[in-house]
């Protein structure tokens, strides 16, 4: 880790980088931002932005369960609950009794409410407020290592499963005719989102995690027409807004997560107008 710190100091001779927490935050963003960009494309394709939002909300219940069980590391209980929650939503949607947005809405509110209820029983719910807005500067070396592992796992899955996933998201009957196990791949996708949301919620925060997943991909979709450039732009927007948001937040003294989201929102509107003018022309 020290070697990486030194390399960063060498490459970036700025005042903000001299603090180790800024270096950690930078490394974390470099590791996780490409993932947000990559996975976000499929969330936007599948019109699942509300779904990933609900998963973020479920983290509160995950934490509450962790507190109840006396687990020190909430990441495990959050991951466990997020997976359960995600598969629950998917199976209720599959039963086609209610429309997806209704099902997700119910789950999302229930996830938050259950978390608040359990945590308020124990008193002092404010202790967990850092999960709401997140604190990227609190990220530790161990957490960076976890992010690195998640980056590798998700990238490998994304290489292996993407073609099937995109076909399934385009039209499930067409995918079935090509012998794609649509249900299995949709579940893999849901698990990937649960994993990413869980490992990053602590420093991004429940309120804005979804924007980081959705906005870069939505911006890229505005201006691209093929899969490759869609992904390249999505990853690029995610990394650019991550790094520039972090630096901006240092200089103006604002919350890093929220600043990152604001930068990516600006990118979205710029691409929106570029895309619009292209379509008119």
């Amino acid at each position, binding site marked *: 880790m020290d070697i990486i710190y030194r390399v960063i100091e060498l490459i970036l001779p700025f005042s903000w980088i001299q603090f180790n927490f800024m270096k950690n935050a930078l490394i974390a963003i470099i590791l996780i931002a490409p993932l947000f960009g*990559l996975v976000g*494309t499929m969330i936007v*394709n599948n*019109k699942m932005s509300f779904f990933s939002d609900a998963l973020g909300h479920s983290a509160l219940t995950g934490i509450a369960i962790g507190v109840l069980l006396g687990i020190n590391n909430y990441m495990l209980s959050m991951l466990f609950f997020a997976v359960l929650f995600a598969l629950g939503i998917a199976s209720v949607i599959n039963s086609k009794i209610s429309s997806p947005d209704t099902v997700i809405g119910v789950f999302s509110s229930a996830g938050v409410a259950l978390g608040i209820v359990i945590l308020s029983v124990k008193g002092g719910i404010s202790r967990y407020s850092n999960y709401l807005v997140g604190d990227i500067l609190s990220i530790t070396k161990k957490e960076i290592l976890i992010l690195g592992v998640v980056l590798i796992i998700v990238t490998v899955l*994304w*290489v*292996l499963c*993407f*073609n*099937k996933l*995109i*076909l399934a998201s*385009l*039209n*499930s*009957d*067409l995918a*079935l*005719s*090509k*012998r794609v196990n649509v249900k299995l791949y949709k579940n893999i996708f849901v698990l990937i989102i649960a994993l990413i949301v869980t490992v990053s919620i602590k420093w991004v925060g429940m309120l804005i995690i979804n924007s980081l997943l959705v906005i870069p991909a939505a911006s*890229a*979709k505005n201006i*691209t*027409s*093929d*899969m*490759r*450039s*869609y*992904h390249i732009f999505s990853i690029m927007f995610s990394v650019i807004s991550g790094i520039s948001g972090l630096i901006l937040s240092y200089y103006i003294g604002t919350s890093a997560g929220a600043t990152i989201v604001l930068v990516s929102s600006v990118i979205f509107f710029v691409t929106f107008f570029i895309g619009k003018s292209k379509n008119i022309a």
Partner: protein
Amino acid sequence: MHKGYVCHCSVEVKNLSVVRGTHIALRDVSFSVKHGEILALIGRNGAGKTTILKAIINSVAYRGEIKFFNSEGQIISSPKIGYVPQKLSFDRNTPITVLDLFCTNSNRFPIWLGHSKRRISRAHELLEKVGAGSHINKPIGRLSGGELQRVMLAFALDPMPDILLLDEPVSAVDRKGVEVFYKLITSMREEFHMPAVMVSHDLAQVSKYATSYALIDGAVIETGRACELAKSEKVRDLFGFDIGKGGI
């Protein structure tokens, strides 16, 4: 590649039943389609024609048997199916080109990383066959109804299928495009001989391009040769007009 490829497969559907909740959508449907045959499924809306195709692609749960045989009469356990959906419903703004779509058939190379040369030349070849070669780099959301159906037909031929399923393939296509599309199906049939099952509303087109027909209304009401469709009283009763003059 598939030069000189001739399919000698056949499909047998036996006692196919589909139940949706308490409603029996299909009861004891049986038919077989041999290589070189085009079976047209006709019937009113909601008669279960599309459900038959969905059972064949395993999109709905069913009872009964659907078996595929090769030229030696042995069962093909994992048949390749070419499916052209009625009207591909998808998000038209999805940034995916025709070439991207074709490359989803590759297991090794995710399309967000690029395309393998082999896949590109295969896509070119099939698209040229259906007269859609110039669309290869266009986003599929910007194709017209007729263009998209031709691309879907080419996509259905990759990998070369053991059966071709066409679900009202021309419902989103203009009149001229319909002629072109059916001529294409006929030429595919002459070239590759694979069995085909086609759902259609247009009886004039059925009698012109299919080889046999099955009248469906929750079950098989009647089967026969497509050229004799006009003589069928049951068909006339159900559709209530003179077939020779056009479709619905």
